[in-house]
């Protein structure tokens, strides 16, 4: 045991001690949600030699619209086996927010560990249409704008400021997919030059195919443990030294799309700038959004960004944010990083953002 990192006064040290994710695939037409989760839950417990009966709280993240039936999270509980009855909750959000809820509960000291998981599939329905239902139901949803079209509005606004160009987007995509070559869970990985990528057609101008995330089926799970329990389960826990999330207005025309004010604020509250950052796993589904996020978090040039390939390499909806926290944690466990930042986003054009600072001792 090596002690705990410095924390905000009154906070309890809580660490990520285990992480598992499903293979990220374009379409799993074979398994249902429970069957996809079963091996992931087994792995996340198996990694640290515990069972479902050892955790004090369970929290999941998912959304009903992906498969077109209400209460999808209810059936998914069967992948855990909540018997005898368990303290359990669910957010209709990315699993990163389920992790936040568990972290809050762990702060109170009654429990020492928690299971967090999330699941979601892009393949059962048409995600471009489904996500339009997240928009203002009177003014925007009736027009059925798809996420790529809205992201492209954001990208164009960024180009208009002169702070970035299509070539910058291609450079982000090329680096992310090259990094993904080293990630066995990546769905989309290649070694292609930005110049080559810029020859692709527009999907929605100014975004070309390379600037878009893949459509992914997947799920993920994390075990959190507090205090000494973290060291019992993990040699070098990834302690959460700051975590915060903020939301912006839904009205795209009332926001500065070229800045992520909510990420900046969450990053400040989480203490990103208090010390140097070795690695940042950013949930930027579209290439230009990584540029906005790096800027919003004030990350220095030497910070390694999304070594997993990020959401451009695999974007399992409702899990891609939680996976960023998992990926950043693996860097702490292995000693490749001492201080990491993980980020999750939700809503069109980076409407809601969570920032988590992870440190090893």
């Amino acid at each position, binding site marked *: 045991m090596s002690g705990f990192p410095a924390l905000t006064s009154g906070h309890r040290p809580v660490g990520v001690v285990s992480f598992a994710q499903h293979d990220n695939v374009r379409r799993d*037409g*074979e398994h249902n949600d429970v069957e996809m989760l079963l091996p992931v839950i087994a792995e996340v417990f198996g990694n640290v030699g515990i069972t479902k009966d050892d955790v004090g709280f369970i929290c999941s993240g998912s959304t009903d619209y992906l498969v*077109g*039936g209400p209460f999808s999270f209810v059936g998914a509980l069967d992948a855990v086996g909540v018997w005898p009855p368990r303290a359990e909750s669910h957010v209709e959000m990315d699993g990163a927010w389920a992790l936040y809820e568990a972290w809050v509960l762990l702060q109170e000291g009654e429990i020492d560990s928690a299971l967090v998981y999330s699941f979601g599939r892009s393949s*059962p329905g048409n995600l*471009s*249409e489904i996500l*339009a239902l997240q928009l203002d*139901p*009177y*003014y*925007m949803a*009736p*027009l*059925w*704008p*798809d996420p790529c*079209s*809205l992201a*492209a*509005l*954001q*990208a*164009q*606004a960024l180009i*208009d400021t002169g702070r970035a160009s299509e070539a910058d987007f291609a450079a982000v995509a090329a680096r992310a997919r090259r990094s993904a070559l080293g990630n066995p869970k990546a769905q989309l990985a290649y070694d292609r030059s930005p110049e080559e990528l810029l020859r692709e*057609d*527009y999907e*929605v*101008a*100014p*975004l070309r195919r390379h600037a878009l995330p893949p459509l992914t089926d997947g799920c993920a799970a994390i075990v959190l443990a507090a205090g000494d329990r973290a060291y019992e389960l993990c040699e070098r826990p990834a302690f959460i030294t700051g975590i915060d999330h903020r939301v912006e*207005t*839904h*009205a*795209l*025309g*009332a926001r500065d*799309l070229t800045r992520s004010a909510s990420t900046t604020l969450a990053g400040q509250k989480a203490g990103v700038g208090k010390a140097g950052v070795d690695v940042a796993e950013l949930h930027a589904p579209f290439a230009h959004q990584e540029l906005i996020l790096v800027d919003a978090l004030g990350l220095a040039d030497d910070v390694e960004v999304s070594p997993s390939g990020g959401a451009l390499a695999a974007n399992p909806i409702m899990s891609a944010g939680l996976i960023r926290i998992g990926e950043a944690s693996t860097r702490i466990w292995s000693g490749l990083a001492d201080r990491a930042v993980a980020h999750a986003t939700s809503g069109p054009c980076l409407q809601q953002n969570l920032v988590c600072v992870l440190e090893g001792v």
Partner: protein
Amino acid sequence: MADEGVHYSADHVLEYPYVRSVGPTVGAFLTGLRDGKVVGIRGTGGRVIVPPTEYDPDTGDETTDVVDVGPEGVVTSWSWVPRPRPKHPLQTPFAWILVRFDGADTSFLHVMPASGPDEVATGMRVRPEFAPEAERVGHVNDILHFVAVGGGA
């Protein structure tokens, strides 16, 4: 007969005819569209919010007076769709545009026909092309699309 490898799948349709009550503020905007005009509402610090909401989108403060805006405006950002999706408002190549109506402080999302990305630009002046009066019902689609004012960027 081996059970292994029997994978079924089936089409599943979720289809509901939602009917939304819109309330006085959204209603004012939709009523305006039906009558061929555009209105906004005053929010925090007197700024004009278009499309209008019951609250200032940043502060949550109650909004106050309904005010006429536009009908012309300026494009604040855009994206260009070469291959429209089946539910998109236009089925030939078009641009999504954020339009700040004259007199407004926020922008409104709609569409504009464009055969290429060079036919739309930030800063371009545009105006709405309304559906014929008899066809307007009080819906964002009462604006068929926007067109450039004076025929160019």
